[in-house]
């Protein structure tokens, strides 16, 4: 009955690893972008890497979906896993979207303290990504532990949320034009969206576990 299960797990985990690599590459882009002495060539090289990795993640998503469809899992489980893979892919899409829409159009010069907070958001998001990866792995091994891990992923999102609010508060007090404030706000919100996307992955896992609780 449970034909092709190991293949399904491998593809989902491979997809997750590619999304994690995309996010790591994105964090390098961000580091470079936040530098005052921006190296454009290096930045473009890193941005290309984000695109390439996101493209690979897309391909792997297709392969994972195919393997889920052709497995002998219960139909409900197939739907849930496809939704999970889709949400995981959403994380890489968010990172790519920042590269496409923010970095390409302007070099935002954040003040020093805000740069620190942005870097902190990125650090927490990377930790959240690692927790999400562990959570998905646990989903296949121990539903109870997967649920606990999902709680951790949610906690990281709350931390990012707090930093996002603090940054927006500082932005409000910052003496720049309203138009500039919107550009900076857009960047901060988009960055925090990655953490929200990871929280969405955790929500899917929580739902999968909840349905299976007697």
């Amino acid at each position, binding site marked *: 009955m449970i034909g092709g299960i190991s293949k399904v797990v491998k593809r989902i985990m491979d997809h997750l690893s590619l999304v994690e690599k995309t996010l790591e590459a994105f964090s390098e882009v961000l580091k470079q972008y936040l530098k005052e002495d921006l190296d454009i060539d290096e930045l473009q090289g890193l941005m290309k890497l984000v695109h390439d990795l996101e493209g690979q993640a897309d391909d792997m998503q297709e392969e994972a979906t195919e393997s889920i469809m052709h497995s002998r899992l219960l139909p409900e489980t197939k739907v849930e896993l496809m939704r999970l893979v889709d949400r995981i892919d959403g994380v890489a899409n968010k990172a790519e979207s920042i590269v496409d829409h923010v970095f390409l159009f302007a070099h935002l010069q954040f003040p020093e303290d805000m740069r620190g907070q942005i870097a902190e958001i990125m650090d927490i998001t990377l930790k959240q990504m690692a927790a999400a990866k562990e959570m998905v792995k646990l989903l*296949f091994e121990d539903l*109870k532990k997967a649920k606990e891990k999902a709680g951790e992923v949610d906690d990281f999102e709350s931390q990012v949320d707090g930093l996002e609010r603090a940054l927006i508060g500082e932005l409000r007090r910052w003496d720049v034009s309203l138009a500039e404030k919107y550009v900076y706000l857009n960047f901060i919100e988009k960055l925090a969206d990655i953490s929200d996307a990871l929280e969405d992955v955790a929500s899917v896992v929580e739902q999968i576990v909840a349905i299976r609780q007697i």
Partner: protein
Amino acid sequence: MKVPLWLKNYGPLSSGLYLGWALGTNDAANVFGTAVATRVIPFLWAGVSILIFATIGAVLEGYAGFETLGKFGAMTPWDAFFIALSAALTVTIMTYLGLPVSTSQAIVGAIIGAGAVNGTLNLAPLGKVVVSWISTPIGAGIISFFLYFLLEPIIKMFTKGLFGWDKFIFWGLLLSGIYGAYSLGANNVANVMGVFVHAGAISPFWGALLGGLSIGLGALTYGKKVMETVGEGIVRLSPYTALVVVLAEAITVHFFAIVGVPVSTSQAVVGGVIGVGFVEGVNRIDRQTVKKIIFGWVGTPTIAGILAAIVAFLVALAK
């Protein structure tokens, strides 16, 4: 015109076989409906399982029901033919009209109706039969209530990870379906062949074998649509509660096969659904459901009885 010997000997069985086929098409949904409607188990697997296990159940444990139905009074093979035909017509007409119907209750009504006209009726077994009918949904409800708790530690043992759950549900639905098919054959074969065995038209072994096969063939040839329709009603429950309901239905029906009274698998399912409803704190008893069950107990045997009485009267006139 001289009637050929084979027709004289085996012709009466035709209405029983038709009744078995109709029973198989309808009742297959009560054992594999959930699994097929959710596409957990392919229809062919379910159909073949019912064919095999309903036949095995009928052959191994169908005889007690033959005895109970036989106690209602003496009859000839052609009396048996008309009784089974009246029951089959009742089931067909009521199904067509969308009314709740049970083959077990139709055949008893038909036996009583025909027996009353023929003057061969013995109502002594009726008390045991009626008590069994009423006990079926109640018993299934109680069993499903306790099964819900009993299965919990077992499912937790197997369902640590996501795929353990899938395995448990798949094997649970397959095995409970197989057991349900076995119980269906053991219990309901008496509806199909009981009157013929009693009339001496066929031996108990061959009656059980042919009856079981006719039920299985009904499920295999025409059960898919009913499984998908009826199954969806059960699917609204979670996979675990659906599993509990099917298992409770199978245990109840098997119990009454041992007691020797054919009962309604549909009413056992309703009882099971109400039982898990109590555990989950959901009230699944509505007036319509209660009406359907009571109609099954009273309306079905009455209609079948009247029809069989008319047929028996006409046959007596023709003689």
